[in-house]
């Protein structure tokens, strides 16, 4: 316990440096902005801003990128409540009760409970990350190569199972991602694989080019082909204060939401969207105000909004302790760390204490900032919605193009991004999910290394994956997860949950 406090104190001393505070603030502001704006998600934004963070120390870069992710959860609730327009997938369920509350003249109260609930959940989740980090790390250090391989396989399978749409297509996308990750020089033998003699490809396909093309640019084209849904703010925000009755009803929902969100965030493949839906289902069954659901029940805002913020913090746990990304945003974080020369994994807590504890402390500071950014400045964010998309997309495009060039000062990366944009657009048109592909792309090279090492140690005997207890258990869970999706009943439930 003393050690935890000492570590947290160290973290705060890192996070409170001027530069880190500034970048946490920038991250939270950008995150809120993209949370408010529909059509721009955290994955696209983080990939867009990756190159800008390269000049910064790794800790500062991750602090800012993390701020964007959890900031987006705050911002997403604003438009969901005021305009019935979810800024992010994770705030889809907030529209159900939040907008009804706004129609009843309680928009201010809904916004307040969303922000306060998020703040509370974020604080609890931060402590959870801090406490579980070193614990999980010590477990992870006893992992052998076979266990790592199985863990990554489990992560990939759960990411595919929980992705939107058909499971088998998502598994296909994961494998395609692994295949794309093979391009480049083979680490062990130095042989060039699938490079077609192009020198730029000997380091592998650019991670930033892939992410920006498939998420950033492809999203621009998809947004352009849809006619813009202009929304006008008609509801008054009203008083931001909660009345006594509302406080009494919201508190248990916030507590439950925090619990559900923290748990679902840790799951590989889980994240904010899953958490908010899980909490909504729970509130509709359990809360005292369940009879009022559909007419603007405060529980339906308090629970999910707490849950999605808790989840966005705890989804850092697998990344920071095991080096395994739980979702597409975390895959981007892995990419950012690798470009900075840091190999994510269980040794990170010891080798990079500044980064680990600094990030945790900055999450709490960031949540406090977001509370201030969001509540009093709500009017400003709503105004942002009035900027038409035709002024926004040239800016995104410009930042993408210059940013991608600046990574290696090579125009080849710009053309590579164009190719990935075409692929991303094609995938969207065929309902192939790009998020599992990104996770496969990041994990693929690590998996190959662990597979080779495990098989070398076992003298080519594949039964090592089943016989080692950790690895065997992980594989059994993976098989179970895949098997469960074959049951039609569960599959339908998942579709309901993710369709929003």
């Amino acid at each position, binding site marked *: 316990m003393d050690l935890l406090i000492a570590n947290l104190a160290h973290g705060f001393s890192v996070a409170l440096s001027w530069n880190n505070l500034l970048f946490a603030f920038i991250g939270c502001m950008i995150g809120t902005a993209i949370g408010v704006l529909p059509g721009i998600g955290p994955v696209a934004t983080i990939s867009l801003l990756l190159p800008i963070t390269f000049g910064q120390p790794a800790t500062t870069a991750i602090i800012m990128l993390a701020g964007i992710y959890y900031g987006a959860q705050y911002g997403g609730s604003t438009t969901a409540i005021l305009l019935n327009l979810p800024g992010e997938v994770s705030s889809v369920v907030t529209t159900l009760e939040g907008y009804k509350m706004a129609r009843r003249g309680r928009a201010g109260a809904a916004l307040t409970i969303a922000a306060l609930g998020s703040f509370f959940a974020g604080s609890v989740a931060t402590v959870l990350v801090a406490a579980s980090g070193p614990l999980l790390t010590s477990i992870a250090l006893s992992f052998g190569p076979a266990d790592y391989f199985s863990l990554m396989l489990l992560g990939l399978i759960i990411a595919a199972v929980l992705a939107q749409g*058909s499971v088998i297509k998502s598994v296909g996308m994961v494998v395609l991602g692994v295949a794309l990750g093979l391009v480049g020089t083979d680490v*062990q033998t130095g042989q060039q694989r*699938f490079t077609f003699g192009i020198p730029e490809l000997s380091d592998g396909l650019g991670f930033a080019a892939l992410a920006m093309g498939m998420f950033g640019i492809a999203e621009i*084209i998809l947004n*352009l082909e849809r006619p813009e849904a202009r929304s006008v703010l008609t509801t008054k925000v009203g008083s931001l204060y909660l009345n006594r009755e509302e406080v009494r009803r919201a508190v248990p929902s916030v507590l439950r939401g925090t619990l559900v969100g923290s748990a679902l965030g840790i799951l590989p493949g889980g994240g904010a969207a899953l958490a908010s839906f899980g909490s909504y289902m729970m509130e509709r069954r359990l809360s005292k105000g369940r009879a009022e659901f559909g007419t603007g029940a405060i529980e339906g805002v308090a629970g999910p909004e707490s849950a999605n913020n808790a989840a966005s913090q705890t989804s850092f746990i697998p990344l920071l302790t095991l080096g395994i990304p739980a979702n597409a945003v975390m895959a981007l974080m892995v990419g950012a760390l690798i470009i900075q020369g840091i190999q994510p994994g269980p040794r990170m807590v010891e080798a990079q204490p500044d980064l680990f504890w600094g990030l945790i402390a900055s999450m709490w500071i960031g949540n406090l900032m977001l509370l201030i950014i969001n509540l009093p400045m709500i009017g400003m964010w709503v105004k942002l919605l009035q900027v038409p998309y035709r002024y926004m997309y040239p800016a995104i*495009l410009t930042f993408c193009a210059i940013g991608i060039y600046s990574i290696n000062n090579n125009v080849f990366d*710009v053309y590579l991004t164009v190719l990935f944009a*075409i692929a991303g657009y094609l995938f969207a048109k065929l309902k192939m999910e790009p998020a599992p592909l990104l996770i496969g792309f990041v994990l693929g090279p690590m998996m190959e290394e662990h597979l080779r090492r495990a*098989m070398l140690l076992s003298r080519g005997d594949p039964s090592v994956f089943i016989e080692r207890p950790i690895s065997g258990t992980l594989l059994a869970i993976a098989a179970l997860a895949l098997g469960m999706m074959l049951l039609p009943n569960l599959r339908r439930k998942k579709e309901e949950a993710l369709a929003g």
Partner: protein
Amino acid sequence: MRINAKDLFSGLILIVIALVGLWLNADHAMGTAQRMGPGYMPWLTFMLQLVLGAIIVVLALNSGPDPLERWAWREMSLVLLGMCVFGLLLERGGLFLSTTAMIVIASLADRTHRPLGVLGVTIFLLALCWWVFIHELDIRVSVWPQF
């Protein structure tokens, strides 16, 4: 037959990429399970991809109908053409010229754009990019054309 065209094409794409990958991979030494050569993991990956693609195709034959969607060719080609022109112009023409060309071309993709609006966006973005990328980050690229 209720063909799911989206899934059918998804499966076919996976199959084609896997076959091309396996063909290219024929050049790489496989090695043994104990000492894997550079071709071992690609072989595993593409074989798995081939099988998955085949399953997706088979399932697609009776899970539809889900027809293909229209492509926004105009929007896509203008946005991507803008990026390519940026790439072509950047090193000779400098940051300002290449960025302006990209913004103008990409702006044609949205029919509601007006010339004055495009001008405003361009000036604003040039100033912002100069500040972020030249003044703050100092990426090594010239601002004005090189002769």
